[in-house]
């Protein structure tokens, strides 16, 4: 279980960073979502010592810690609000600049 989780985290991080560095803003934003989820998974796994039983199931060494689950819940809610805002801004920028290429989205140069 630990192996699967850690492989999944690594894979998601890799895919996320690859997507984040693309030139298309939408792909890049999706990369950010994937990285954020990889970190959420990491945070979750920091509490689930074995990851097989839910919280408060009292078999010594087998129970998962409940706190990281609460943390992840908070982080997911915040990330959701954040990504909704990012998507709204991407929409406005795409309509206004008529492009989603990051190189053309920089008019803030003096």
């Amino acid at each position, binding site marked *: 279980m630990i192996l699967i989780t850690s492989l999944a985290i690594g894979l998601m991080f890799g895919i996320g960073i690859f997507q984040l560095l693309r030139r298309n803003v939408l792909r890049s934003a999706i990369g950010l979502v994937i990285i954020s989820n990889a*970190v959420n998974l990491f945070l979750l796994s920091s509490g689930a010592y074995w990851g097989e039983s839910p919280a408060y199931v009292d078999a010594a060494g087998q129970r998962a810690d409940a706190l990281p689950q609460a943390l992840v819940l908070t982080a997911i809610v915040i990330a959701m609000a954040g990504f909704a805002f990012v998507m709204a801004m991407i929409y406005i920028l795409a309509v206004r600049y008529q492009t989603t290429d990051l190189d053309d989205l920089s008019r803030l140069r*003096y």
Partner: protein
Amino acid sequence: MESILAVLPVLIPLAGAAVAMLLRRRRRAQESWALGVMVLALGSSCALLWVVWHEETALVYAMGGWQPPFGIVMVGDALSAIMVVMSQLVLCAALLYAMGCKDQCTYYPMFYPVFLALGTGLSGALLTGDVFNLFVFVELMVISGAVLTAISDDKLGTEAAFKYFYISMLAAVFLLLACGCLYASYGTLNMADLSVRIMADPSAPLLPVAVVSLLVVFMIKSAVVPFHFWQPDFHTAAPTPVHAVLSSVVVKLGVYGFLRMNYLLFPMYMEQVQGALIVLGVVGVFFGGLGAAGTYDVKRMLAYSTMAQIGFIVVAIGWGTPLALMAAIVYAFNHSLIKAAMLMLAGTVASRAPVKTAAFSMVTGLGRSFPMTGALFLLGGMALAGIPPTNGFVSKMAVFQGGVEAEQLGSLGLIAVGGIITLVYVSRAFSRIWWEAPREGIRPKAYGDRVTAPALLIGLCLLLGLWAEPLLKLAGMTTQSLQDPQAYINAVMVGTHDDTPEPDHTASVGVPGDHREPVTE
């Protein structure tokens, strides 16, 4: 019940933001309410600073009555208190400026509530004693700042907000990563508890990951050099009242973070962090200074200047002697006031320009019709460059003394040269706006933003320049309390460790159900 003072500076703007939302149809009432709330919050944070100063202990408020290592605590120690007073002072001035501001965006019904939310996030991030709670408050601050910039009159505001928000989301990811690493290694997120456990066993393999992640997060927040690229763009496009807050106090969050990391959380990594901070700070002083000297826009110039000034603070933190730390705190406090005032004056000039912009091509020679603003700008510029009767001189002097005492003459010489660039760009801006003849066909508007707020701030700068002793004493006390993390730990972890000397009456815990915790779920 003094301990409630540790949470009031966060609670008051939060409740005020909710009420301000209800007042959205009455603009006058809403803006007066927002200012009143912020002044009340400033009063509570001043009371916090007063109590902390006189009792020389940290005030601890446990949210919902949950005892420290388990629940979330708000800790008002000397560093947090002085930073919160600084932030709320500038926030009050910015609200005052927004009330007399001609920007369209201040007429949006959500402007003041979001502004108060920005204040809540900033105060909360400075006062919290819990790493995850820090993440929550930082996110609140970031999203409020980005929203306020996205609605800016400048039509590039959305692009600027997008850049900032994007890099901040990435910073949030790293902050979460640090939380995860610390929790996996030490099983707690309370800063005092973490400090005890990290000291007991600094060999956890995930600890360096957490240190580097947190360092990167705070560098992004403070726009320290390799992570500075979003800052001039973002700050230039923000509406003036928001720009004044972002460029002066929001960037100080990183400074606070460096101090907390070095002296509470990770003292064993202090040397490495300090080395990095000296190098990056010196690069920042030059990069920011030269960038400011090369721009064609007053607001952008001041945004670059923030990068340089943060460089001075960061170098002083890097030296790490008591005198240098005191200098860093004094510098951070004074720079907030100076930079906020300068930005507001730049915004006033921009509001008088025929087309609302602060570009030199548009504002050259405009100043002849408002000489008083010019006098204020000159005083502010002197403060920024560190010329006597102003507080800028006191802070620069303190930094140089700290450098001499720390025997870091190499970096001291470099930042002294970098400091001269400040004089170059400030005097260039002043002479372009107030000395040169206006170009043909450019006439200033008859009315612009009110200068009450910057005048008050400049007055405060002069006062702190002539009567600097209280601030220096306060900073000295803050330095002492920083170098004694055990006092912080004892105040927070009262009754939970056997080695705690005696229960401290100021660290009493709130009645359960008295106050709800504000943000986390």
